[in-house]
């Protein structure tokens, strides 16, 4: 797809970069006059996806997380990807309250929150190769 504007960054899979990913996303979005609620929705979804990449993709070991934000015709497109463990059963991972890591105090709500706050979400994952999450949302103002 051709985007009117876009950015793609790669950053270390470290938990302190979760805030960085949110800030970069919000800064990109702010060019398109979103509502406060839209900014928070998208920031929260990005935070969930990046946290999943760090905790589940790389199991808190070293790695690189990719974040893409695109804008086209009033819609925001997000991609978050890792080259980590991959998800064995995507449907199970998307069930509310399911977590493969309860010992790490994970709530199992990450995908539910992404689905709630974004309009479209698609997950591509292959065990041993990694995961890529695609999310979209229309902004009410252009």
């Amino acid at each position, binding site marked *: 797809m051709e985007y009117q504007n876009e950015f793609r960054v790669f950053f270390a899979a470290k*938990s302190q970069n*979760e*805030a960085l990913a949110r800030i970069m996303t919000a800064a990109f979005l702010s060019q398109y006059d979103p509502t406060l609620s839209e900014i928070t929705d998208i920031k929260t979804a990005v*935070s969930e996806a990046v*946290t999943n990449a760090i905790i589940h993709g790389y199991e808190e070991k070293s790695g690189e997380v990719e974040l893409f934000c695109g804008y086209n015709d009033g819609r925001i497109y997000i991609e978050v990807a890792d080259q980590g463990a991959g998800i064995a059963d995507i449907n199970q991972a998307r069930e509310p309250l399911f977590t493969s890591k309860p010992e790490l*105090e994970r709530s199992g*709500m990450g995908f539910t929150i992404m689905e*709630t706050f974004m309009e479209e979400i698609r997950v591509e994952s292959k065990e041993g190769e990694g995961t890529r999450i695609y999310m979209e949302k229309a902004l009410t103002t252009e």
Partner: protein
Amino acid sequence: MELKFLKRNRTLIIKIDGEIDHHTCEILRGETERALEKMGGKNIIFRMSGVSFMDSSGIGAMIGRYKDIQRLGGKIAIAEANDRVRQIFLLSAMQSLIPSFPNVDLALEYVEGGKE
């Protein structure tokens, strides 16, 4: 994230300022454990008026603290949470375990309520 601890009766009131995510939850967990050890108490109230962001990591951390407090026979509640934080709690159906109150006084009434 900044945390402030205050003890009222048998309740530890923890004021959280800043963002709650996977990264800051580790700090929240460690500091809360230390404060419970040092200051005592069997209940916890999280005062959330200063929370500018929370994702599902916050829910995980709250459930973790709920389990700790349950072992002590206490209760846990949140107070002064904004709409967004309450929405995340509602999505995960945690309000029966960790009820939300508009202010600290009502939360204190709930956690301190039971007679020994």
